[in-house]
Structure formats: C-alpha cells, structure tokens
C-alpha cells in the first residue's frame, strides 16, 4: 500500500498539487488536499471541465456542498465508474479516495513517454548532434570583427582557408622479410596497393632493393615534411589513407565475389585481371586511333587528335602503321599546304594591280581544285584497281593450290598402276605372294588389335576413375566455396549487428543519463516481481487446499454412504430378531438412539464450522468499516448540518428584512 501511495503522491506533485513533505500516505490527506489534487488532475486530463472548478473548498457549507457535487459530476464525466458524490470529498474515506486518485492518475496523459520516444537511427543521431551544434552556435552572440576574442574564433572569425590540395607522398615500405616475426600474423605488404610508392623499387620477389632501403633510411624526410604546406600534408595523409581503405575494400569485394569462384590464388587472379584490362585498353585505343575513310568528319577529327597524342608518346615516329590509311582531312591538309606553297611563288612574282592578282588567284584556285578533284578520283580508281587485283591474286593462288593437290593425287594413282603393271608378267607367283602378304598383314592387324585391347581396357578404367575423382573434387570445392560464401555473409551480418548493437548501447547509455531520476524504477520492478512470486506461491497453496478439501469431501461422502448402508442393514437384521427376543429389542433401541445422537453430533460440528466462518467474515467487515472513520464523519455531518441550518436561517432573515 505504501508503494501505491508513494506513486500517487509523486504523480500528484508532478501535476502541481502542493503535497507537504511529511504526507506520505493517503491517510494523512485532508479534504482540502483531496479536492486540490482532484481538481488539478481533472484540469490536466480535460482542460475544459476543470477550468470552472476551484482548487480549494470555500468556507460556506452550501458552497462546499455545491463544489463537492460539481467535482463529483466532473469525475463522472471524465469516466470514473465507481460510486461518487459530494460525500467522497467532504467526508472522505481511504479506499474510495485511493481508487479515485488511482483512476485519475492513470488517466493523466503520458507526456513523459513522448519525450523519450526518440528513434535510435543513425540519421536521427546525426540530426540531433547537428541541432545541438547549431544551438550552441546560435547561443553565442555575434561580435563585430574588431572586438573578437579568441573564444569567438572558432565560429565567427574564420582563419585562412586552404583548399584541399593533395600531393603524392612516399611512405617507407616494410623491410626485410626477417622482420615478419615482429608483425604478428599480418600478410606481407603488397606493393600493388601502395599507390604512391614506386613500383620499380621492388624486384619480382617483392623484397626491397638495398639502394631504396638506404634512401628510405637516410634521405627520405618524414611524411609531414614531404608536402609543401601543412594543410596539404594533412590533406595528402587523409586522402592516401582513404584510398588505401577503399582499395582494400574493393579487393575484398572483388575477391569474395569473383576471385573465389575462379579458384586461382590471389596473385594469379590479380595478374590475370591486370593483363585482361591492359588488352582491353590496347584494343580500345587501337580502334579509336584507326579510323575508316567513310567515317563522319567529327570522328575523324578526334581520331586525328588521338593519333597526334599517340605520336607524342612514341616520340617522333612519323606515319606509323596506324596511320596508313589517312583521312580526307589529312589529305586535304596536305594538299592545301602544298597548294599554298605553290601559290605563294606566282603571287610574289607578279606585282600587278590587286584586281588582276585576285582574278588570277581565283583562276589558279579553280584550276588547282580541278586538278585536286581529278587526282582524288584517280586515287580512288587506283585504290579500287588495287583491291580488284588483290582479289584476283588471291583467287589465282587458291586455284594453284587446288591444282597442285590434284596433281599429287594423280601421281599417287599413277604410281600404284605402274607397280601393278610391273607385277603383271609374273602374274601367278606375284598373286600368291601378294595374297600371303595380305594374309600376313591381316594377321598382324588382328594381333595388334588384340594387344591394343589389352592395353586399352586398364587405361580406360584409369581414365574413368580419375574422371570420377575429378568430379568429386569439383563437387567438394563447390560445396566449400558456397560454405565460404555463407560464412562471409554471416561474418558481415554479425559485424553489422554488433556495430548496430554497440551504437544503440551507447545511445541508450547517454539517454539513461539524461532521463530525470524520479521514483526509482528498480524499486517498482522489484516490488512487482516480489508480488508476482507471492501470488504464485499463494496460488499453489490454494490449489493444494482445494484438492485437500475435495479429498475430504469425497471421504465424507463415502463414509456417510457406508454409514447409511450399514445402518440400514443392521436395522433390518436387528428388527427381524427384535420381534422374538427382548434383549434384541433393547439392543435395537440402543442402536437407534446411538444413530440419532451421532447424527446430532455431526450436525453440531457442521454448525460450529459455519458459525466460525461467519465470525471471520464479520470481523473482516468490522475492520473495513473501522477504516471508514464513520464516527468522525457523522460528527462532522452533524456539525455541517447545524451550520447549514444556521446559514439558511440567516438567509431567510435577510430575505425577510430586505
């Protein structure tokens, strides 16, 4: 009960009721306090209802009566289902007050729940920190630049700004492989990842040349001194680290998804990928730099730029094999240059009037253009001729090859025929010889075939066995790959979960610190758990008692049944003999009396039991009624009644006078 009272008092204090420090249970609540508490609660629950009610009882009795009635009405409007009237406030008793206050406190809107209902997502955390930072900045007042103190420097007076400029840095690599025992279990540094480290510094096996080592040891300045300014040093360090991290992550993703499937070692996979990429780049460059004559003008112009770029890479190689075809544009350039070269001389030679020179120039221009057109057409024709000739050349070569093949066949046939012609004169002998040769050949073939069979069978067995082993291994490796993939997935998922849980844990810790420390929750929870345990025990006891009672009742029923039957049987037996014998008649009388008395005894015992129960009930009722303080309330009612009578008399007198 004390816990309930404490919770109620705390909630009432929260609403605004001034409950004194020494009041810690509802027994001490006076009527005024009750009225104030109820009114404030009603005001919070429904502001419309509670606005009209005063927070304290007015002195006059009828006014108090009226206030009590309106308060009771308000409570019923809010939804209280119990019996309530003016007497609950003016002549209060504890249980009613407790139930009323509990109902009202439950109805109080849960503002606290809304405040702590903050989502724990990452973006929410970020937004909250942004809001907090903005709030602190807004709180600092703006100061004109001449008066700024160093504490304003951060937010208001911004120093020199540097742009994020990055410079390549050289980091010293790890040194001899004998150092590996110091580096616990990390893989050796892979030089493919150190972007700015000089790749040519290492030879094939990955160890570092001694000259480079000496350079690193003696000459190389520390990384912060390698950049030109402090800001770019910081920027370069950060950028390099981010690049390393992202490269490692890329490699991880790539290896896990594609690399494992290809079943190569990491180095082989990497080398294969790099060679593939290089080939693709070469192909692209070649196709972009080798244009076709019918391509559009724009493409050919960019292609010519690309070829110029490639030429600068190659140095001074003029007209490389890539440029054999040339374009209209390059030809046109060549021709215009040559034309200009040819045109300058006649202009210089003749210093006549400008009009003449112009006309002549125009004539020359047109003639040269005609020439050019002619030459172009001739070139085209020649190209077409060349193509045609190439095609015929190829055809002729083909024919030649075919003829030679046929020649060889005919020669063979001729050889065979010549041999048979030679053998014809000695026909019969040769025939016999040939037959024996043929038979011998056939036997040899059969022999060889059987030997081959002998060899073939075990080899085929071997082959099949190896193939099976290979396919088994394939299955195994597939299974293991899928296992590895699932393990990777699980690792990823569990690391994500762990990170999330850590984040939420941190957040909840900060929130817990922020929450106001009111009536401690642990006391509540402990109390609740105790009560639950008690109730469980009581339930067990009740079930035990119930089962005991049932047992007893069954026994009683059994015994009464037995008793009745035995009595009936003995009654009959004795009655039969009672007619003849006197002693038997006496015995029968005694039997009947015994039965009667025992019945009475049983009856009295049962009555005693019921009466005891009634006594207990009545005692409980007495206790409950004692808590109602009815006597004091009655006295107060009598006093108030007298007061109302007096007020009425006074009012009547006033009315009569005025």
């Amino acid at each position, binding site marked *: 009960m004390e816990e309930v009272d404490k919770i109620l008092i705390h909630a009432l204090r929260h609403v605004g009721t001034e409950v004194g420090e020494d009041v810690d249970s509802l027994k001490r609540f006076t009527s005024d306090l009750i009225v104030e508490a109820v009114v404030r609660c009603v005001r919070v629950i429904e502001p419309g209802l509670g606005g009209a009610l005063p927070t304290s009882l007015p002195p006059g009795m009828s006014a108090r009566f009226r206030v009590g009635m309106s308060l009771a009405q308000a409570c019923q409007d809010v939804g209280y289902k119990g019996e309530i009237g003016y007497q609950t406030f003016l002549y209060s008793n504890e249980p009613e007050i407790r139930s009323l206050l509990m109902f009202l406190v439950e109805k109080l809107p849960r503002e606290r729940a809304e405040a702590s209902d903050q989502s724990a997502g990452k973006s929410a955390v970020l*937004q*909250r920190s*942004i*809001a907090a930072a*903005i*709030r602190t900045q*807004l709180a600092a007042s703006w100061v*004109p*630049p001449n008066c700024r103190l160093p504490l304003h420097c*951060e937010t208001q007076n*911004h*120093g*020199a*700004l*540097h*742009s*994020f400029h990055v410079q390549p840095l050289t*980091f*010293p690599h*790890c*040194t001899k492989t004998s150092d590996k025992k*110091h*580096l*616990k279990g*990390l*893989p050796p*540094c892979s030089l493919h*990842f*150190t972007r700015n480290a000089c790749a040519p510094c290492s030879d094939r096996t990955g160890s570092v040349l001694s000259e480079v*080592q000496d350079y*690193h*040891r*003696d000459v*190389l*300045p*520390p*990384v*912060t*001194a*390698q*950049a030109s*300014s*402090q*800001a770019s*040093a*910081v*920027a370069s*360090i*950060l950028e*390099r*680290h981010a690049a*390393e*991290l992202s490269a*490692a992550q890329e490699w991880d993703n790539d290896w896990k998804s594609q690399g494992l499937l290809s079943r190569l070692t990491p180095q082989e996979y990497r080398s294969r990928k790099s060679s593939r990429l290089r080939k693709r780049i070469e192909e692209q460059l070649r196709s972009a730099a080798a244009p076709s004559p019918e391509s559009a003008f724009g493409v050919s112009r960019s292609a010519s730029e690309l070829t110029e770029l490639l030429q600068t890479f190659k140095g001074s190689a003029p007209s490389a094999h890539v440029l054999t075809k040339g374009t209209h544009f390059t030809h046109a350039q060549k021709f215009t240059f040559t034309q200009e070269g040819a045109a300058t001389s006649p202009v210089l030679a003749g210093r006549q009037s400008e009009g003449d020179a112009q006309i002549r120039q125009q004539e020359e221009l047109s003639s040269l253009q005609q020439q050019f057109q002619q030459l172009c057409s001739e070139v085209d024709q020649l190209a077409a001729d060349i193509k045609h000739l190439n095609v015929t050349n190829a055809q002729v070569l083909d024919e030649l090859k075919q003829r030679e093949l046929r020649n060889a066949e005919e020669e063979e046939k001729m050889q065979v025929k010549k041999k048979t012609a030679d053998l014809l004169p000695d026909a019969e002998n040769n025939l016999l010889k040939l037959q024996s040769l043929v038979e011998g050949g056939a036997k040899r073939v059969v022999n060889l075939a059987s030997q081959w069979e002998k060899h073939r069978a075990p080899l085929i067995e071997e082959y099949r066995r190896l193939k099976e082993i290979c396919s088994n291994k394939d299955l195994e490796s597939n299974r293991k790959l899928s296992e590895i993939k699932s393990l990777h997935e699980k690792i990823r998922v569990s690391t994500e979960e762990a990170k999330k849980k850590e984040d939420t844990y941190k957040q909840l810790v900060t929130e817990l610190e922020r929450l106001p420390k009111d009536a401690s929750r642990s006391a509540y929870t402990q109390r609740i758990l105790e009560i639950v345990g008690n109730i469980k025990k009581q339930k067990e006891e009740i079930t035990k008692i119930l089962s005991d009672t049932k047992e007893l009742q069954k026994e009683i029923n059994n015994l009464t049944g037995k008793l009745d039957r035995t009595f009936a049987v003995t009654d009959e037996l004795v009655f039969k003999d009672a007619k003849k014998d006197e002693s038997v008649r006496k015995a029968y009388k005694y039997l009947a009396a015994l039965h009667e008395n025992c019945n009475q005894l049983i009856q009295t015992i049962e009555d005693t039991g019921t009466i005891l129960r009634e006594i207990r009930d009545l005692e409980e009722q007495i206790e409950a009624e004692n808590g109602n303080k009815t006597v004091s309330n009655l006295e107060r009612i009598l006093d108030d009644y007298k007061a109302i009578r007096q007020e009425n008399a006074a009012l009547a007198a006033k009315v009569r006078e005025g």
Partner: protein
Amino acid sequence: MELSESVQRGLQLGADRSSVDQRSFQVLVDSCFRSLLSSQGDPAVLDEPELKHVDRIQLKQIHSAATTFILEAVKQNADRSAISSSLEELTFSAERIEIFYSSYQKHKKELERLLASLGRRPAQINDVSWRLQYNTKNKQLDKVNQPFYLISLNTEGPGASEELSFTCTTEQLQDLVGKLKDAAKSLDRASQM
C-alpha cells in the same frame, strides 16, 4: 575506427616493446603531434636523441602510421573508448594508451582547427552601409518620386574582404529582408530538432 593495413602494421611496430621502449614512446608521440601542428614541415622532427636507437625506417613507418591514426581520430571525433579499443586491438599496453590519449586530449583542439581550415566557405557579411536616394524627376517624366536604396555589404571571404554593392527598390529590399528572416527561422527550426 577502420584503419588500413599499412597503418595497422606501423602502429603495431610502435606497440612493440623491443623496438620502442617506454621513454622513447613518449618522445615519439610528442614528436608526432608536433610534426602535425608545426606550420612548416620540419624534416628534423624525428631527430630526437632518445629516438636514435630505433631503426630509422621503422621509426618513419611508425611516424607515418601514427600521424594517419591521429588525423583519422580527430576527423571522426573519436571518444576515449573508440581510441582505446582500436589501440588495444593493435596490442598496445594500457600505459601507452594512456600516454597517447593524454597527448591527444592536449592537442585535440588545435588539430580540429587545422582540419576545419581545409575546405571552402562562402564569404561572411560583416557590415552594411546604405544610402537612401530619392528620384524626383527625370527626362521623360516630370514627377517620379521614387526611393532607391544603395546598399553595400562588407563581406569577409577567405583572406580578402570585399564590398558587394547593389541598388534595389523598396519591394526588393522587403523581399530580401523577408528571405533573411525565413533563413533565420529555418535555422531555429533545425536547432529544435
């Protein structure tokens, strides 16, 4: 905090007692912070007498890894638990973590300022001077009677300060002031989140 492999390796070298002992560790940490905060990169920052017995290459590796670690920690505004858990994973002993963390606390503000100075920012308005002019007549109209505002904003950008001058009518000025008030209100709203 995520660290790349080279940084982890370098830091492990720093945690190793056989290569760097306690006293040199303190000097090393101090010189790392000093090298980041000095305005001109000092090539001799690692030439302390206490560090002479450490192998030069290892020293430079530890120095580069440590500077990267410090910058990443300041960038992510790492608190004590994050830094100590990362260093514990790299086998640093508790005293070394303590030494590192106390130096980190000392220099954190300066490093934050250094990192905050990287980037771009638009210019800030420091002062306003205005002139109200009233056009009475012009060649085409006999009665114009219109006010004009000549406003000159004194802004301070990174490095230089410049004046931004413009003229506007009354409505345009009201528009501008309304927009400024909207901006202030949205900033308030953002801080209430």
